[in-house]
Structure formats: structure tokens, C-alpha cells
């Protein structure tokens, strides 16, 4: 099943966000979100590495032997990481100092290896490149969201430079900055609450969808029609919303019961 470019972007940024949905790459997420500037720096570095490593892995996907693919991916990724590291060192020394070892550690970031294995090794170069950019943007937005909360509550201002000076004071003098948010424990706490919020939104939208479907099913027993775009012709057509429920889901149930019994017997 081929995905279109807009679909790739929607998945990478929203529905399959690497940080909030896939829960990958936690180390840089926790470590580099002390300020929005650092988070942006880290995000851009990851976008660059991810898109180019995806592109090259996709170009080489038919040449790399299956047995040594992970090692090959790591070599390709570390090549781009070294290039990005040298560029940042040369042009943004303050960012380099603030992010420290987390730039070379992009090599072992699970997001990049996961995209190489799950997407770039199976898809053509252009789609893989777009997937790299989309996932990178999703990662960057997540980092910036976390850094926004941490910096605002931890220092009362935003957009301090990478060297920790400057920035705009947002909250008034009444707010005494809670520096716990800039400390490691603040990183864990902020990320925990943000992921909880995302889970809440996801479950409630799923719940809404389910209720709507149940209401419609109650009206016409699952045979109602909806307007949808025909995938072949692109025209708007009326289609039944749900297939009629198959009469015999019994074998599956019987099987699960059996395995449960077996499990009990095993204990």
C-alpha cells in the first residue's frame, strides 16, 4: 500500500508523532528541552540527519544485504551525524555547547533507526525523504512544546539564547520562576503530563467516533449510507458506512476461550 505525500506528512507530524504517540527517542527529548532555542536546534539537527539518512538508505535499499542492514544503517546515519555535528560546531558554537554530547548521540536515537527500518528500507527515495522531514518536524514540534512549558514555568520567560542569556520575560514580576522545571526531574514530570494530555485527547476523540457510529447503527442497523470520495474516480459517492456484520464470529471466540483454558491449565 503506497502512501501519498500529504498522508506521510500527516502521519509523521500528528497521528504517528514520534515523541507523543510512538514514545521513541526519549533521551534527547528529556535532555535538550531546557529552552525553546535548544529544542529548535536539536529538532533541526534531527530533521537534517533523518531526511538524508532516509534518502540514502532508501537509495541503497536493494544493495544492502539483509543480514548486515542494521550495521549499514548505523554507518550511514553516523556519517550524516558527523557532518551535522561539524556544521553546528562551525556556525553555531553556542548551540553546540548547550546540546553537548546529544548531537553525536543522534546516531543512537531510536527514531532514526526506526524510520530506516520501518519506512526507508521499503519505500522509494522521494517518499522516504518526505517521511524523514515529516517525522523530523513531528519530533521538533514535540520538543518545542515541551521546552515551551519548561522554559516558561522554569524561568518565567521564553526564547533565551543557547548560552542562557537574553530572552523575553512573559510572566510578570508576580511569578517567581520554579527552577525545578529546568532540572532533570522537571523534564520527566513535564513530559509525563504532556503525554497524559495527548492520551486524553486521543481516547476522547476515539470515544466520540465510536459513539457516533453506535448512534448511526442504532438508527438503521449498520446499513446507513455516508458521502465519501471514491478512491478510483475521485467523485463524491454514497457508500454504505459499515459492512453488514458477518453472522458467524463464533470460531474466533471459541479459539480465544480455548487459549484461555490452555493458559489456565498451564498455570
Amino acid at each position, binding site marked *: 500500500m503506497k502512501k501519498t505525500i500529504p498522508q506521510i506528512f500527516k502521519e509523521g507530524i500528528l497521528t504517528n508523532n514520534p515523541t507523543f504517540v510512538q514514545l521513541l527517542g526519549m533521551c534527547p527529548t528529556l535532555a535538550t528541552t531546557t529552552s525553546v532555542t535548544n529544542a529548535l536546534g536539536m529538532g533541526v539537527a534531527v530533521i537534517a540527519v533523518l531526511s538524508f539518512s532516509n534518502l540514502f538508505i532508501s537509495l541503497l535499499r536493494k544493495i544492502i544485504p539483509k543480514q548486515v542492514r542494521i550495521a549499514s544503517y548505523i554507518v550511514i546515519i553516523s556519517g550524516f551525524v558527523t557532518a551535522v555535528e561539524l556544521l553546528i560546531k562551525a556556525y553555531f558554537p553556542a548551540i553546540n555547547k548547550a546540546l553537548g554530547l546529544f548531537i553525536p548521540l543522534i546516531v543512537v536515537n531510536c527514531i532514526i*533507526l526506526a524510520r530506516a527500518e520501518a519506512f526507508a528500507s521499503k519505500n522509494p527515495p522521494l517518499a522516504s525523504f518526505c517521511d524523514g522531514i515529516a517525522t523530523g518536524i513531528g519530533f521538533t514540534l514535540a520538543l518545542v512544546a515541551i521546552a515551551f512549558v519548561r522554559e516558561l514555568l522554569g524561568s518565567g520567560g521564553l526564547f533565551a539564547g543557547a548560552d542562557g542569556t537574553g530572552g523575553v520575560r512573559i510572566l510578570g514580576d508576580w511569578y517567581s520562576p520554579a527552577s*525545578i522545571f529546568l532540572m*532533570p526531574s522537571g523534564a520527566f514530570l513535564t513530559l509525563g503530563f504532556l503525554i497524559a494530555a495527548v492520551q486524553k485527547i486521543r481516547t476522547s476523540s476515539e470515544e466520540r467516533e465510536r459513539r457516533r457510529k453506535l448512534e448511526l447503527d442504532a438508527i438503521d442497523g449498520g446499513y446507513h449510507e455516508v458521502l465519501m470520495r471514491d478512491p478510483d474516480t475521485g467523485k463524491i459517492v454514497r457508500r454504505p458506512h459499515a459492512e453488514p456484520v458477518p453472522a458467524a464470529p463464533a470460531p474466533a471466540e471459541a479459539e480465544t476461550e480455548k487459549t484461555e483454558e490452555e493458559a489456565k491449565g498451564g498455570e
Partner: protein
Amino acid sequence: MGNILMIMFAAILTQNFIFSRFYGCCPFLGVSDRPSTALGMGMAVTFVMTLASAATWAVYRFLLAPFGLEYLKTIAFILVIATLVQFIEMFLRRYVPVLYSALGIYLPLITTNCAVLGAALVNIEEGYSFVESVVFGFSAAIGFTMAICVFAGVRERLNFADPPKAFRGFPLLLISAGLAAMAFSGFSGMKF
């Protein structure tokens, strides 16, 4: 001697790899569901990290630095670590099957554990000598093992908790890790 002790103390407590430097958070959150698996992972990491610190130090000192290839250290180190993990796996399987059956399943995961590469890079960054590097790798891994085992104990209790639906799973883990990190930051003295 005092220097070595300082490095050990800092690596285990004040600069704990997980709670203060954030190296190795993926295995920390991933395989800390039971104390026994946590201990297995911790031991495997200790084993690999001590050897990797020695190997990467030697590679940097005798191979990269003399030829002015310092900028290649990321690539070189990740390859050294991957090879080392492979060799350790083969060696253990052949000669120490008891240890292999205990650590075997964790070894492939360690290649992409950022704690190992992180320790190797910190050694170079800080300009540690050979002995200091090995001590740092070993004690940082001990700090990692301690953190992951303590947290596995916490997680066993969390299984019986009844949090709000949105907090179930990962968020609750992160929040408990945050509280644990707060305790660890007590070692360095909180700055307000």
C-alpha cells in the same frame, strides 16, 4: 586515588546517567518492568560499558588522535561498540554459557543504547586517562544499574495503582521517574 574516587562518586550519584544526564532512558523505561530483567540489563550494560570504555579510549588514543582523525570519533566508536557487543556475545556463548543465558537477550539491545556511546564520548570530552576512563565506564554503569533496579521496584508497585485513564502506562512511569530524579538531585544539592 582521590581523583578516581571523585569520578566514581560523581558517575554513580551526582551525575547519574539516567536521572541527571539522561543517557540510556530508552532501556530504562523499556526493560524496567521486573527487577530480574532490570538486573540482567544492568549487568549486561556494566559488562559492555566497562569494556567499551577501554576499547574506545585505545582506539581514540592510538588510531584517531595520531592521524588527526578526531572528527571521525562518532563513527569509529559506534562501530567499535557494535563489534565489541558481537564479540562479547560470541565469546560468552562459547565459553561462559551461564553468563550468556543470563545476559544474552539484552546484548543486541546495547548497541543502540546511548549510555554506552555516551560514556565513550564523555571519556574523550573530559580527557580522562585509561584507568579513569575504565573506572568512569564501570561506575556510570553501576549508577545505571542502580537506577533501573530501584525503578523496577517502583514499577512493581505501580501495577497495583489505579491512576486516571489518561495517565495509565507511560505518563505514570515518567512522573514516577521524575519523582525519583528529584530524590537523586538531592545528592548534588538543589539550586534555587
